[in-house]
């Protein structure tokens, strides 16, 4: 096997998987994120908020405002969703 450095695309797939499926309840219930096809309305639109990765990590680990923490997610899942949301929302480019 050839060791492949994870491309942004592969990372996005993993992060999207956590965003839509692994996180319970799904992030998509509350948040809008066009890249993921998520149209949740009760929480902030991530397309508008454009969080960077550390902000996503903080929110997922500790909760923020009405959003509860997600203690069931592993460190690698959290890193995947954070880099994905930051990139997909445009927050990584800020």
């Amino acid at each position, binding site marked *: 096997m050839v060791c492949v450095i994870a491309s942004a695309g592969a990372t996005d797939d993993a992060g999207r998987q956590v965003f839509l499926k692994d996180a319970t*309840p799904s992030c998509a*219930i509350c948040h809008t994120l066009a890249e993921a096809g998520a149209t949740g*309305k*009760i*929480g902030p639109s991530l397309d*508008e908020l454009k969080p960077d990765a550390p902000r996503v990590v*903080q929110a997922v680990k500790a909760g*923020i*405002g*009405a959003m509860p923490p997600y203690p069931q997610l592993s460190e690698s899942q959290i890193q995947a969703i954070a880099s994905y949301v930051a990139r997909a929302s445009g927050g990584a480019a800020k």
Partner: protein
Amino acid sequence: MNNHPDLARRRLLATGSGALAVAGLTGVSRVTAQTPQTAPAAAASQKPLPPYIAWKDADALIVHTPTTVETKRTALGTGAITPAERLYIRNNIAAPDVSIVANRDAWQLSVEGVRQPRTLSVAELKTLGLETVAMVLQCSGNGRGYFPSKPNGTKWQVGAAGNLIWSGVPLRAVVESLGGPTAGMRFITGTGGEAVPAGIDPKTVIVERSVPITALGDALLAWEMNGAPVPHAHGGPLRLIVPGYSGVNHIKYIKRLALTRDETDAAIQATRYRLAPLGTKENPSQPAVWEMDPKSWINYPAPDVGPVKRGWVQIHGVAMGGTQAPRKVDVSLDGGTTWREASFIGPNMGRYAWRPFVLQADLKPGAYMMASRVTDSQGRVQVETTPDNTGGYLNSGWRAHAFTVNVA
């Protein structure tokens, strides 16, 4: 049949301690020309207003996020009342659709925990009583940005607050008209009209707060703010107003008002908005974020304004007692070593309002550490330091709100 014989007379007397006549409260001053906002907010202020509050005064506001918008210190003014166009925004979750204000009088409120529980429309509520109160609406996290521990959440400075005039029916009149409280009720529990999507436990996000039933004395169900229908962005068609309490307790688009034996177990009551010692998680055993404390701050000169010109300077700000009227304000120009009594400007609007104040000072060139400290009518003095707490709530300390002004 359910009306107590003295109810009508009571309405006429408007006995609520915060009631006042609003005649003459006009002419809101503007001071926006003086300074930009402070440095930490400079980047955030570049964001445009979100569409739902496009009607607000963008130059007066700092957009932290689409649901957290702060009034610039320099836009708080000296007119005593905060115009709606400048008032801060803080929403825990997305508001209901704006269509709920298309027919305001048709909005329905379920009243429970009374002898004859039922649902009333705003039109019906308007027949039960009328009172007006001036009240500081202050986000529970206002001043969070000054806590040394840097708690999570919006780093509000001073502008998550405004002084507003609310009109509506006294809650006690509504309760009396429905036969009074059922026995043993200890709390007033209000539920907002936000829709919670399927797939999440409503208790985790629902906006439902309980306050002690003693608040029944002055609480209103308000449909007017500053003489106009309560804007949708501020809780219209109907908002619970609990004078003296912090922002989260004034339930927007209220759809259910219940007198309850216990506090709600919704997360926003049980594990949020608790005064938890630093390093501990918020839980129901800790004090709830309810009543506000005496607090004041200086709005001009603002921090980070370039050097102020030597000579006479009108140092002004606002002072509130929280639950009692402010009696006096002292201003220090040397970081709290010495204090001089400032003068109130504008009308006294009661125990729940703030009052602008001014200290005229002839300043020579130099650096001045400016602070203000209010004393309320009961002799309570604004604390020097509010201890850090996990959520970063209710920061009222005068030292944290002090800043240096350079005079050249």
